[in-house]
């Protein structure tokens, strides 16, 4: 069980997170929607301490840490229970696909080399890229890089995987195959928090949808509740804009 309580974060004078609380159960797939600047990416990055929040607590499993005052040791422990998939893939440029997937295992978790290699190869095969295991990121397409990034996160067997707009930097033709892989991650029962603009994905895969705006959680519920019966005015406005845009795209 993962819980964030009362997270606050400001950048200079801008308060990006106003007092956000969220609860995630094991196996949940939470999709966070919202306009840009709503704080959804910041919230995600606060969870694995890529940003340091100004206040709030984080509970993962048995461990609770203060989001602001966590010690380096605690941060490291949290990072070893979570995994992150970046919008720009951020694969290690100086390592092959296989080495990228192995890195967290051998260096951060002291898994023996052979065991790590086997696990990494299995995971790469699972995302369909075993043939490219010795390729460097510069030799892979965007979609392939992101799938390696997903493999890198999955192989760590974390308590939760955080996805930061995983398909936003991809060419449209590649978005589909990447979303398919993310869906199969969900089908494996892994707990996920996904920030995305892909509405059909949210409807299809999410167990809970959270709408954020201006640093607050405006509304949360099942996909059916949020998409078909939104209660808040802001939610309705946001959905109206996004869904009509999507419809236009399909024309």
């Amino acid at each position, binding site marked *: 069980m993962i819980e964030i309580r009362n997270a606050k974060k400001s950048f200079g004078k801008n308060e990006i997170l106003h007092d956000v609380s969220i609860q995630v159960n094991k196996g949940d797939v939470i999709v966070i929607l919202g306009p840009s600047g709503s704080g959804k990416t910041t919230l995600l990055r606060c969870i694995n301490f890529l940003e340091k929040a100004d206040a709030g607590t984080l509970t993962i499993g048995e461990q609770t840490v203060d989001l602001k005052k966590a010690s380096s040791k605690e941060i490291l422990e949290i990072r070893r229970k979570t995994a992150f998939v970046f919008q720009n893939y*951020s694969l290690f*440029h100086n390592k092959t696909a296989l080495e990228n997937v192995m890195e*967290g295992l051998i260096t*951060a978790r002291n898994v023996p080399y052979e065991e790590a290699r086997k696990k990494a190869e299995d995971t790469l095969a699972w995302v369909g890229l075993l043939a490219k295991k010795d390729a460097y990121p510069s030799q892979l397409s965007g979609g392939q890089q992101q799938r390696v990034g997903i493999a890198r996160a999955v192989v760590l067997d974390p308590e939760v995987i955080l996805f930061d707009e995983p398909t936003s930097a991809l060419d449209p033709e590649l978005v589909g195959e990447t979303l398919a892989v993310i869906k199969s991650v969900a089908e494996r029962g892994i707990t996920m928090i996904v920030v995305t603009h892909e509405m059909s994905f949210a409807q299809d895969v999410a167990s809970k949808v959270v709408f954020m705006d201006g640093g607050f959680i405006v509304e949360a519920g099942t996909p059916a509740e949020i998409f078909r019966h939104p209660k808040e005015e802001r939610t309705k406005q946001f959905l109206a804009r996004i869904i009509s845009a999507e419809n236009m795209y399909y024309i």
Partner: protein
Amino acid sequence: MVDLFDWKRFFTNIPQIVAYLPVTLKIVFYATLFGVILALLVAVIRIKKIPILHQAAGIYVSFMRGTPMLVQLLVVFYGIPILMQQLFNINVNRWDKIIFVYITYILNQGAFLSEIFRCSILAVPTGQLEAAYSVGLTQFQAFRRIILPQAVRVAVPSFGSDFIGLFQNTSLAFLIGVVDIMGRAKTIGTATKHVLEAYVFIAILFIIISLLVKGAFYLLDKKLAYGR
């Protein structure tokens, strides 16, 4: 051009001069070895902006990069004895002159290389560091396994230029009395009253060295391309 340049003298000089090439190579070796270590330290201090050390490092780098090499040699040559006497009461009259040369070149390289290293480390995208943290690496692990290898790649061309510059700078050491290839040329000149052949040979020698080093770094650069 009679008696100014004599081929016979040119060729007799060659073995005599080349015999002192190891002295030049030793200067380059020690300057690079300790210079790199010093430079890494200074670069990290400046990137992490450690208080007090950061400012001191800034002054050190500015001084070494803003003053001529020759002046630095002379300052070290005259200054270290005074420093040693005043602070530690050690008499350095027995020291071989080459020690002062080593100290100067190490300090000099430390400053120039620290700038190169600092820029290369900062050139690695922050996303790489974040990705490293996200899979659970510590700061040290992330630096050693992800940032440093990529920074090295960026640094290679500048390091190569600096390395050639170091070789060329060694040509000044003889001015404080060290006998390297230049020093040998000078002694040949005093002994035989003919020194042009010696300097011409040294010029050719330096050209060959610079071409070899350029070639080596070109190959190194290609090897580090990581699949590009």
